[in-house]
């Protein structure tokens, strides 16, 4: 799939994520923690955004709100036209199942399942036909170069391989939005680069919107098209990195160009 020319500029694309004065407060003992405190921004469809900030800045909480794993205390978080704050628990589950795919720092594969079963799991919840499921899961694992490792359990694989498997799982239900929470945090630089190249490839060839949480500015500058800075739950900066890559350019070349 390639992006059509008129959608190549973020300004012309439809909105994927919109937050309006989004707040997530919670109590820890006596103190009120303002994890997300009045954040408003707009992310266009097909964009690659890095959420930057120190630990405790609220970037993961913000990501969880967009993922529909958590609910805002106040404000709105609208993903593909639907305000998540208004959705029922059931509909939020459907949102997580179909609209977003998630990748975590700690991979979060189910240890008792093989890679194949892990990748298949979201399709079980989506009630995809058994016969179809098998082919789709194979295809997804093949795409991330794990065709030979399908029958292995996560503990038998390296961190890079596990993260590739979790990428395959995140994409299996064809979401429009990929949410990555420190995806390279537990990986060495070689594996980290490999994962980031995959993510960029998804952004460019599938037109997926990517929101990635990271605290490494260099990583963000290298791959993302836009950086949103957070501190103490508040938005402190929003920066667009150069012109967006044109459609059809392979990930490897894009990297070379920018360097």
């Amino acid at each position, binding site marked *: 799939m390639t992006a059509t020319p008129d959608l190549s500029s973020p300004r012309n694309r439809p909105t994927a994520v919109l937050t309006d004065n989004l707040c997530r407060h919670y109590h820890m003992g006596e103190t009120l923690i303002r994890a997300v405190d009045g954040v408003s921004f707009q992310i266009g469809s097909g964009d690659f955004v890095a959420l930057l900030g120190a630990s405790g800045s609220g970037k993961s909480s913000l990501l969880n709100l967009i993922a529909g*794993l958590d609910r805002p205390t106040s404000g709105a978080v609208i993903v593909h036209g639907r305000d998540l704050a208004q959705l029922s628990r059931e509909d939020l*589950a459907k949102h*997580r199942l179909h609209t977003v795919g998630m990748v975590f720092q700690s991979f*979060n594969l189910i240890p*008792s399942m093989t890679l194949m079963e892990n990748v298949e*799991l979201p399709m079980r*919840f989506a009630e995809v036909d058994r016969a179809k499921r098998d082919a789709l899961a194979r295809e997804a694992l093949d795409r991330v170069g794990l065709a030979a490792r399908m029958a292995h359990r996560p503990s038998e694989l390296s961190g890079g391989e596990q993260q590739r498997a979790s990428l395959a799982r*995140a994409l299996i239900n064809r979401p429009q939005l990929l949410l990555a929470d420190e995806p390279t945090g537990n990986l060495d630089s070689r594996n980290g680069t490999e994962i980031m190249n995959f993510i960029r490839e998804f952004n460019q060839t599938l037109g997926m919107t990517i929101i990635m949480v990271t605290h490494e500015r260099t990583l963000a500058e290298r791959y993302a098209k836009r950086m949103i800075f957070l501190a103490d739950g508040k938005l402190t900066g929003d920066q667009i990195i150069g012109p967006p890559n044109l459609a059809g350019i392979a990930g490897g070349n894009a990297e070379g160009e920018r360097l």
Partner: protein
Amino acid sequence: MKGYDLSELALRNLRESVLRNSLTTLGISVGVASLVAMLSLGIGLQQLASRRLEKSGLFDTVVVSSRRDLRGFSREEERNGPAPAESPTLDESARQAIEHLPNVREAYPDIRFVTELRFQDKPHLSMVAGLPFSAKNNDAFDGMQGSFFSSESVPEAILQKSFAEELLGRRGEEDDNVNVADLAKPLLGKEFVMRYAQRMASPADHVEAGDGKQAGSPQPDEGGQAAAYSVVSKIETLKIVGVSDLDPDSMRGAARARVFIPLRLAQDLHVMQPSDLRDTTVAAGNQPAYTTVSVRVTSPTKVQPVEDAVKKMGFNAFSIVDATRSVRQFFAVLDLFLGIFGSLALAVASIGIVNTLVMAILERRREIGIMKAIGASDADVKKLFFAEAGVMGVFGGVAGVTLGWAIGQVINFGTNVYLKRQHFPPQQVWSVPWWLVAGAIVFAVIVSLLSGLYPAARAARLDPVQALRYE
């Protein structure tokens, strides 16, 4: 999530901590086994008891007697019923009228008398009863050696086993478990002589011997005819054709005798009946009056309407249904108590299920968080835990029924070894009907699902953000 995926995931989750889940399942199976064991013991005992009652062949029988002989069985009948002298006589025409009532298969008089029997020149005293030819098809004579009467009025006899023992001089031996076949061998085909007292109507009435068709019995105050009859001593030679294993103590009414002769033969003998002495007006008549008439009903459920119809005719009626009602009540209460005791173990097992699943939630907290993060709904998670409880219930139920059945077989075996030593015939004190098997498994699944309610709800409520935060 689809049912197939659900059970597949549930099974694989159970396999993950196989020891703990096996122990929990074992707990359920012990509970089910104890329930099955208790209930099948109750059912077995009940069947044992009702088999004995049914063997008497009287479940479908109403016993009719005249109010002239016996007053009603209850005070109320005694007060409200017609005076004894006004009530109808239980004679041949009454018998025929009863036989024509709806739902009546047959009505036959009960003829019983105590008389002297000579076998190999030794006298014996015994109750002799007339047995209707229809009894041939009765379960009561299943265990009989030899054959039934060859026709309706042949001079043949069937002996009850204790009388057979007496004839063979084996009476009083310690060995209670006598083989009927051993008793029958020396007796079948032999003859014995029965001495009896024949009642003959007085010559004044006695116009045509036997076939008199005079209407009604003469009343002493009406025609001035004398109510007279004479008693003549007679003998009859009978051939032994069968030896029955019936236990006279388990029988009622007509069957409570040790020697049976064909009913038609007994009628033709005109043996003095106890009622003849009590009611001379009847005895003097040419038509014999019966002490009691046994009415066989088409099915046990029709006993009550027939009983009512007979009472309306002015006779007393009694059926064993009245007597068995309390027996059935007793077993219902017994089964209830056995069931409660059996269920206790299952209740303990259900606590085990709750414990195992709650432990599983704590252990699989992160896994639940992951499943929710990748799109599992609350319902999916709830169903998964439910399915795990259900699978444990199915396995526990099947294993428990098998275990319970095995325990039953062992106890049955043990009981029969004991019975054999006590010289009683072997009995099936244990019975596991198919509905108990199905019911126990279903019950185990229901109990397991109920136990899964709380853990499943708790797992479904789990906050994914919290669950994923822990490393």
